[in-house]
């Protein structure tokens, strides 16, 4: 899968992640993305191969044409040349009323389990945590109603058999989990883009497996950094970023290195 030119290009791990995120977006897709790597990935896709993709901020910004990178989901930079900026209740209603209008939502978390259930609330006891995070944000509504792409640092303590707190539901306990719970069955986590590679979920058992490992990473390294047994048998090496895409990332999207 590697091309000769690409091998010669230097890039950072975060750049690789941004590109792996961007690759999840095809032209015309509608995506909910927060700031940071997800927004950088979504912007990259839009500039490089998905000009008709649409980015939504959970503050209710629809289709911002970002010129400078926003630092928060409410940054006016996110709304530059947007089609609308709704009051909060309207976005919340939209996510419940028309989830079929959204193709992907991007999420992050501190812990993830084999079925893609995510913790972004706390480490340790909920009432007296060792580490408390800033809150779930709109992750729960996205995880409930739309297909998700999850961004994670790939570490054993983060890829765990059981998360300390389920902030956003993934496939719950497996293939029948969402149906049993009354959640939309055909929606759930699709991809986990990590610092080491790209994980997907098996259609049968809805368990995470390694789909791609980045150049320079081995499947064994990924298995080693995963705190639960993970299937690496289907893993292939990811294409490295090409020069044009890296140039977009560095010169156009995040020239100030706010995130990469």
């Amino acid at each position: 899968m590697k091309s000769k030119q690409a091998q010669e290009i230097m890039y950072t791990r975060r750049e690789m992640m941004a590109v792996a995120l961007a690759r999840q977006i095809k032209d015309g897709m509608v995506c909910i993305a927060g700031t940071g790597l997800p927004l950088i990935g979504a912007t990259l896709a839009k500039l490089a191969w998905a000009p008709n993709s649409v980015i939504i901020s959970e503050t209710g910004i629809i289709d911002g044409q970002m010129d400078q990178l926003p630092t928060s989901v409410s940054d006016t930079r996110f709304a530059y040349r947007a089609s609308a900026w709704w009051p909060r209740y309207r976005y919340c209603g939209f996510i419940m009323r028309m989830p079929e209008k959204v193709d992907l939502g991007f999420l992050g978390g501190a812990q993830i389990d084999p079925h893609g259930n995510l913790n972004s609330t706390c480490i340790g006891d909920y009432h007296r945590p060792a580490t408390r995070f800033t809150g779930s944000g709109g992750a729960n509504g996205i995880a409930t109603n739309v297909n998700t792409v999850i961004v994670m640092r790939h570490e054993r303590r983060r890829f765990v058999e059981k998360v300390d707190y389920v902030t956003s539901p993934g496939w719950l306990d497996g293939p029948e989990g969402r149906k049993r719970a009354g959640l939309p069955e055909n929606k759930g986590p699709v991809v986990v883009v990590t610092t080491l590679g790209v994980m997907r979920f098996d259609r049968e058992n809805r368990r995470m497996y390694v789909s791609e490992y980045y150049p320079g990473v081995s499947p064994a390294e990924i298995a080693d950094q995963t705190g639960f047994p993970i299937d690496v048998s289907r893993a292939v090496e990811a294409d490295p970023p090409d020069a044009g895409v890296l140039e977009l990332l560095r010169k156009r999207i995040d020239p100030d290195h706010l995130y990469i």
Partner: protein
Amino acid sequence: MISRIMTCKEAIENFVRDGDTVAIGGFTTNRKPYALVREIIRQGRRELYIEGSGAGGETDLLIGAGCVKLMVNAYISNGAFGNIGRRFRRAVERGELEFEDYSLDVQPLRFHAAALGLPFIAVRGLLVESDLERRWGIPAEKYRQDPKLPPAKLLIRENPFNPGEKLVYLPAPRIDVALIHVQKAAHDGTVRIEGPAFVDVDLAMAARHVIVSCEELVDPEELRREPWLNQIPFIIPSACVHLPFGAHPSQCVNHYDYDPEMMHLYDRACRDDELYGRFLDEYVYSLKDHGEYISKIGPDRLGRLKVGEKNYVENLARGNGES
């Protein structure tokens, strides 16, 4: 016509009591009523309950200054400007703050319910099968006993129109005081928000008292020319306070961008108790009022934040922090 104009000091003195439930408009780094919050800290209010949604540094500041007893949380962030919510996080980790967690979809809908006089709002799916549903930050007994809280975090009940379908019933919160910062308000109390409204109109309609601070105090006639652009009529606010740069260091559409320098400074200060105390002294306690705060920041720095047509400062230096 009764004037709703007050000084910031008067507005907080008159309408914010110890133990009140306070809800704050804006969203993380956009149109946050920082000046009103700094005055609450200055006046030493205690035991506040916060109904938060897109909380930012202003809420972290209230917590850090010891004003808050309980926070209903969904999100607290200054975006890329360091890891904010650090005072919140530390207060939770130390067991110094009671808290509840909802999500950022749910809190606006709870505010909306309260604003419309609905006792609750019943939704499909939200929070279901997550610990946001199953594990409550505030014990069920406290919900039953504390008149400041609704009778429960939520209830799972059937849809009466579709027996067998489970819904999440979310109670409307009781809000004593809403704090919002807007672009324009008139003497009579008419309010126009320019740019995104976030949860502000809902907070104004839900709260017993609304304190509005504004960039521009204008003649009512100016706003009454296009009444459909005014979200809050004059019969709603309890107080209007003229506070230019009242949202500093957050953004204010048609006026100014966020102030990265202050955001980064806050990020550094909030990592350490002692530094934090000095930060509070320097930017809140030692300053008599918002006027002194603004003088301290200085016209040059504020002038550099003035937005152009794009509603942000192009190529604003933002990356000088440690984030």
